[in-house]
């Protein structure tokens, strides 16, 4: 350790001064520790919370959805030097298939940034059982592809994961409203003069009420024929590697395919807003706690410089250079930061452990090692910077005056 070798005397003095001023050292260490504990705990809490919210949100939806663009009215071109007033009724959007979806899926399968591609056909239907009628969304998928988007297996509460040959999966909420169990029969009507009795193979619970009350998964082919879109799909679901790049990838794929491309970031704009507002407020807390820690260190060292004026004078008279005095006080600042942050990190560990075992149990907070390393490094650097002004003052003391200071 060259730095210890070179700064040996400065270390010795800094540590000696800290040990001599035990009460001061203890108090500022506690001050720094409280600050660091708050920073680490709040950061871990917010990171855990956000990861949990994103996890739950994305657990039941695709990162990107590709849709056929809306149909628009075609207008006759306007002749030169004329003005045209148009009263336009927007067109009703009928269910249409994505053109050339097989080629698009094959092409998307090749892209490295996508981890899953799942074509599906989705449309409205009514489900009838006895006198009960519920409106539902039929979702026709290929199970092995769709499992990579939403792991239905994990959400299954009863029955088995099977679609095709008249087997369907329905949401738990819907099952309750219809009073059906696994093995019950229901009639599906799509309003296309097409109605069919299907068998409930499994019941799932995604944890999102809207979906659990409306979704019915069935085989892609069967859904195609029931919705009158034989051979067609209406949506291609995608999953990406890094969820926060979803928007950029969505835009790129939208341009490549000419389809309407929606990322989860765009469809959950409010959630994203809430998350970034939360991040901003967390950062504000970190910055302000950091500033107050810095001022705490600076004020303790300022007092210490005054208290040690005479000793600084003696050191100067016995051959200490200005730089050495400066470094002694900078090191004290660094040591305050280091000591305080180590204690603070241990405290925050205890807080997190308590939260995880005795807290509301809504989610689990991990404490990543990178957060700890960052907190310790940041506190130490803050200590050095906070010490800058008092250290400079100590170094610039006139030895003649300092030595006579009582």
């Amino acid at each position: 350790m060259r730095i210890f070798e070179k700064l040996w005397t400065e270390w010795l003095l800094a540590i000696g001064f800290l040990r001599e001023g035990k009460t001061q050292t203890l108090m500022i260490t506690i001050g720094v520790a409280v600050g660091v504990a708050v920073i680490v705990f709040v950061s871990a809490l917010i990171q855990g919370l956000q990861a949990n919210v994103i996890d739950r949100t994305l657990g039941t939806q695709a990162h990107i959805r590709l849709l056929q663009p809306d149909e628009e009215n075609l207008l006759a071109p306007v002749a030169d030097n004329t003005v045209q007033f148009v009263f336009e009724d927007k067109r009703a959007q009928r269910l249409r298939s994505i053109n050339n979806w097989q080629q698009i899926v094959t092409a998307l399968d090749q892209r490295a940034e996508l981890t899953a591609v799942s074509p599906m056909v989705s449309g409205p239907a009514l489900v009838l059982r006895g006198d009960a009628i519920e409106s539902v969304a039929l979702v026709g998928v290929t199970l092995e592809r769709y499992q990579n988007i939403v792991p239905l297996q994990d959400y299954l509460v009863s029955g088995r994961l099977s679609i095709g040959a008249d087997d369907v999966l329905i949401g738990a909420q819907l099952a309750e409203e219809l009073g059906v169990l696994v093995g019950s029969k229901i009639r599906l009507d799509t309003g296309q003069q097409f109605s069919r009795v299907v068998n409930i193979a499994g019941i799932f619970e995604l944890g999102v009420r809207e979906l659990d009350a409306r979704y019915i998964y069935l085989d892609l082919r069967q859904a195609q024929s029931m919705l009158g879109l034989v051979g067609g799909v209406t949506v291609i679901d995608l999953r990406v590697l890094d969820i926060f790049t979803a928007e950029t990838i969505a835009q790129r794929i939208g341009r490549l395919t000419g389809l309407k491309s929606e990322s989860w970031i765009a469809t959950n704009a409010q959630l994203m807003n809430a998350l970034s507002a939360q991040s901003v407020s967390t950062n504000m807390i970190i910055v302000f706690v950091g500033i107050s820690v810095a001022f705490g260190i600076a004020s303790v060292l300022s007092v210490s410089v005054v208290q040690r004026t005479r000793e600084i004078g003696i050191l100067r008279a016995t051959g200490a250079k200005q730089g050495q005095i400066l470094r002694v006080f900078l090191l004290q600042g660094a040591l305050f930061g280091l000591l305080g942050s180590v204690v603070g990190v241990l405290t925050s560990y205890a807080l997190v452990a308590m939260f995880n075992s005795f807290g509301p149990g809504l989610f689990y907070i991990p404490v990543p090692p990178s957060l700890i390393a960052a907190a310790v490094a940041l506190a130490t650097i803050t200590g050095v910077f906070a010490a800058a002004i008092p250290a400079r003052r100590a170094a610039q003391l006139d030895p003649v005056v300092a030595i006579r200071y009582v």
Partner: protein
Amino acid sequence: MSKPTEIMRLEGLRKSYNIGMPNEVEVLHGIDLTLAADDFAALVGPSGSGKSTLLNIMGLLDQPTAGELYVQGRPTRNMSDQQRTELRGETLGFVFQFHHLIQAFSAIDNVLMPLMLQHGKPKPAARERARELLAAVGLEKYMQRKPNELSGGQQQRVAIARALATNPALLLADEPTGNLDTKSAEDVFALFRKIQAERHCAVLIVTHDPRLSASCDKTINLVDGSIVDAPISDSH
């Protein structure tokens, strides 16, 4: 006997305070003085005569307004703070009235301090030297004690050992016995004598005590910022 080498020479040294202000005052009015390698001198004078100012300048802690100070023949006027600190560390040792030890460190670490400030982590030879110096001032039993566990006289002897750590050519002592009882004062004075004889180190003691100055080989009388009636030099 050959002429002993000169270690410090002052030429026309002046010092003013509050320069350029209405209360400008000149404290030293052109001091000429030479100290040789084996001098044992006393600097005496009433309060306010400029003794401390002169000692600070000779100790390279303060700078003169005019004139030149030569340390072992080297002019010091245009040196940077860093250079003066280095020269001070190499050639001068200080003993102050209030012994001024660093409270956080043991006696031996205080003695080692000047060496550590110059060279970093002390080598075994340096530790051996510190031990030997503490033995020379009669404190071999108290090496690990903190200053507040020592008596005033003992603390002053630690301070003397510290001043000798770098093997200085000149020891500057500011009222070294002013704060001690008569017995301790005599012991400390005897110690200075022994050091000068055994280590060939010049000693300059600032003192109020006429008995002390009478026991020195040479007396420098400072009155109102000028040296008067002294055998070495007289600016008036």
